[in-house]
C-alpha cells in the first residue's frame, strides 16, 4: 500500500461522521437502550420468579404429638444460616421403644416425598418409641427448578379450606449454594468416579464429610443425625420416572432386606404392587448403601412412579405433576416399555403416590417390629386406601384455624 493511500484512509477514518452515519449511530443507541430495558424488564420478571422460589416457605400444621424440633445444624453447626439447614420434627411417645427417621425431599423434584412427610406430620400419632420426620432433606434443592427444564415452580393441593402450595424443586443442590461443578466427581471415601453433576446430588454424597462440599456437609449432618439419635430404621422416600427400572420398589440395605422383602410381598398381596431390590454393595453414595454401612440403622429407600420426570412426556405442567397423565407416555406404556403399568386414563395421581409412600413406610415399621421386637415403634397415619379415596387435601389442616404453635413454615 502506498504512503498516499494510507494517508487518505487515516484522514477518512478520523474525519467527522457524515450526517447519515451520525443518524444511524444515534438510532443504534436508541435500539440498544430499548433492548437493554426490555432485557432488564424480562430479567426482573424472571428474577422475581427465581427470588420467590428461593424464599417461598411451605406451610405445615403439625399433629399435637410434636415434642421437639431439631435442625441439621444441631449436628453440623457449619450449616447454621445456610440453605443446607433444615428442620427435623420429633414425635416422642414417651414410651421406651425404637426410633424411625422418615426423609422427604432428598431429591426435591420428587414432591410426593415431602408431601407424604407433611401428611404424616399432620396426622401422626405415636404410642411407642420415636418418629423423626425431615420433610426437606436437601432444602437447597427446593429453592430452584432444574435449569433448562421449564416446568412450574410449584403446584396446589385443593382442600376444603382452600389451596395448599408446594414447591417443585431441583434434583440437586442449588448452584448458588455450591459452585462451580468440577469436571469429575470422585465420591468420598470410596474414591468411586461418578457423573460430574452428582457432586450436588445429595443421594450420591453419603456418608459425606465435614470439610467437603456444601452437599457433602448436608450428607454428613444427616449421618450424624442417624448416629447421634440412634435411629433404628431410616426411610428415604423418592420418586422415579416410569421408564427407569427402579420404580415402584424398595431398595434395601442388606441388613434391612428381610424387613423390606416381607413388606413388599405383603403390600403386593394386599394393597398395591411393590417390588424389592437389594442395595448393590458396589454402588456408592446412596442412602440405602451408606446409611447402613456408616451407622447401625436399617436403611431402606422407596421409589414411587412420577411420570412428570420421564424424558418423553409432553408439556411439564402442574396438571401433569398432579395427575401423571401424559399422551406420549401412554404410547410407551402400550408397547410395554414402562417398568410399572401405565394407562392414560389413570396416570399416576399425587394421592396414589403419596398413599404408596405412607403405606410403604408403615409396613416397613410393622415388619421391623416383627423381626426386632426390641426396636418396636407404634405409630399411625393415613394409608394408601384413605389417600386414594379422599385425596391429599382431606388430610391437610387449615393453618388459619390451627393452634399457632403447631403451624410451621418449612
Amino acid at each position, binding site marked *: 500500500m502506498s504512503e498516499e493511500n494510507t494517508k487518505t484512509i487515516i484522514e477518512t477514518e478520523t474525519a467527522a461522521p457524515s450526517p447519515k452515519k451520525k443518524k444511524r449511530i444515534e438510532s443504534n443507541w436508541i435500539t440498544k437502550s430499548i433492548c437493554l430495558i426490555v432485557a432488564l424488564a424480562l430479567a426482573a420478571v424472571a428474577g422475581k420468579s427465581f427470588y420467590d422460589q428461593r424464599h417461598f416457605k411451605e406451610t405445615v400444621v403439625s399433629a399435637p404429638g410434636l415434642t421437639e424440633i431439631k435442625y441439621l445444624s444441631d449436628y453440623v453447626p457449619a450449616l447454621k444460616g445456610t440453605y443446607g439447614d433444615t428442620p427435623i420434627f420429633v414425635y416422642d411417645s414417651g414410651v421406651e421403644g425404637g426410633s424411625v427417621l422418615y426423609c422427604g425431599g432428598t431429591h426435591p423434584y420428587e414432591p410426593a416425598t415431602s408431601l407424604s412427610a407433611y401428611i404424616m406430620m399432620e396426622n401422626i400419632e405415636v404410642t411407642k418409641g420415636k418418629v423423626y420426620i425431615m420433610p426437606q432433606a436437601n432444602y437447597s434443592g427446593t429453592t430452584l427448578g432444574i435449569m433448562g427444564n421449564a416446568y412450574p415452580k410449584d403446584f396446589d393441593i385443593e382442600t376444603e379450606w382452600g389451596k395448599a402450595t408446594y414447591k417443585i424443586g431441583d434434583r440437586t443442590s442449588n448452584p448458588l449454594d455450591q459452585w462451580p461443578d468440577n469436571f469429575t466427581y470422585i465420591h468420598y471415601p470410596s474414591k468411586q468416579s461418578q457423573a460430574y453433576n452428582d457432586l450436588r446430588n445429595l443421594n450420591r454424597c453419603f456418608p459425606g464429610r465435614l470439610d467437603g462440599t456444601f452437599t457433602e456437609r448436608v450428607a454428613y449432618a444427616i449421618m450424624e443425625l442417624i448416629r447421634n439419635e440412634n435411629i433404628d430404621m431410616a426411610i428415604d422416600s423418592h420418586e422415579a420416572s416410569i421408564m427407569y427400572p427402579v420404580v415402584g420398589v424398595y431398595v434395601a440395605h442388606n441388613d434391612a*432386606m428381610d424387613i423390606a*422383602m416381607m413388606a413388599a*410381598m405383603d403390600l403386593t398381596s394386599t394393597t398395591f404392587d411393590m417390588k424389592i431390590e437389594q442395595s*448393590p454393595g458396589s454402588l456408592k453414595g446412596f442412602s440405602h448403601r451408606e446409611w447402613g454401612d456408616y451407622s447401625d440403622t436399617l436403611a431402606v429407600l422407596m421409589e414411587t412412579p412420577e411420570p412428570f420426570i420421564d424424558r418423553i412426556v409432553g408439556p411439564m405442567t402442574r396438571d401433569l405433576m398432579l395427575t401423571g397423565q401424559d399422551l406420549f407416555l401412554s404410547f410407551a406404556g402400550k408397547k410395554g416399555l414402562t417398568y410399572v403399568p401405565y394407562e392414560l386414563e389413570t396416570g399416576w395421581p399425587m394421592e396414589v403416590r403419596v398413599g404408596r409412600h405412607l403405606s410403604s413406610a408403615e409396613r416397613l415399621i410393622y415388619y421391623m417390629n416383627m423381626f426386632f421386637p426390641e426396636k418396636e415403634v407404634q405409630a399411625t397415619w393415613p394409608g394408601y386406601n384413605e389417600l386414594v379415596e379422599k385425596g391429599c387435601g382431606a388430610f391437610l389442616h387449615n393453618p388459619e384455624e390451627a393452634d399457632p404453635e403447631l403451624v410451621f413454615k418449612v
Partner: protein
Amino acid sequence: MKKAKLLCAALAAVTLLTNAATTFGAISGDELKTYEAPFLITNAGQGPGGKMARLLVSQAKTVELDKDYFYNAEPVEADLDERDYSVLVVVIGSTDKGLGASGITIEDELARLEKMVKHCQEIELPMVGVLLEKDKRSEIKTNANERCIDAICPYCEWMIVVADGNTDGRFDALKEEYDIPLTIIDNAMDFTALAKDAFVLPQ
C-alpha cells in the same frame, strides 16, 4: 339306599374338604410334592427371589436355615456336592440393578445356569422352578426373565408359580410341553403355607 346316599354325600364332603387347599384356596393346580431336608435354595437371574424364598420358608417354622435348608446365590459344582440335598429350589427373577451390580451380563448368567443344570443332571439332583414375583415376566421373548425361565423350567420336576406370573399361560405351556406338574399360589406370601407341606424334616 338312603344310607348309601348319605355315605356318598359324606365321602364327597370329605373329599371336597381335603382338596380345598389345592382347589379353592391360595394354593391350586397340581398336587404338592414333598422333599425331605436338607435342600438348597438358589436364584436364576441375580434377582432377590432366592432370598425371598429363603425368608418365606423360615416363616413356616418347620425347617431351620443353615441346618435343614441352605441358601446359595451362585452355587458351583462343589456347593451342589457338599451335602446330600434332596432338591435344588431355583427361584427365577432377573433385575437390571442385580445384574448391573454383580457386574455380569445376562449371557454370563445363562452360561452359569447351564453349568448348574448340567451338574444337577449328572448328580441326579432334582430341581424345582419357582416364580414369586409377578413383575419378573415379559411379553418380549429376549427379556432376561424369559431367558431364565427357558434355562431352568424345562429341566425341573415341579414348578411353583405366583398366579399373576402366569396370566399369559406361559407356565401352562411348559407344563404341557415337558409334562411338569405346576402348582399355582395366589401370591408370594402363600409360599410359606406351601413350604410347610413340601419341605419337611426326615421321618
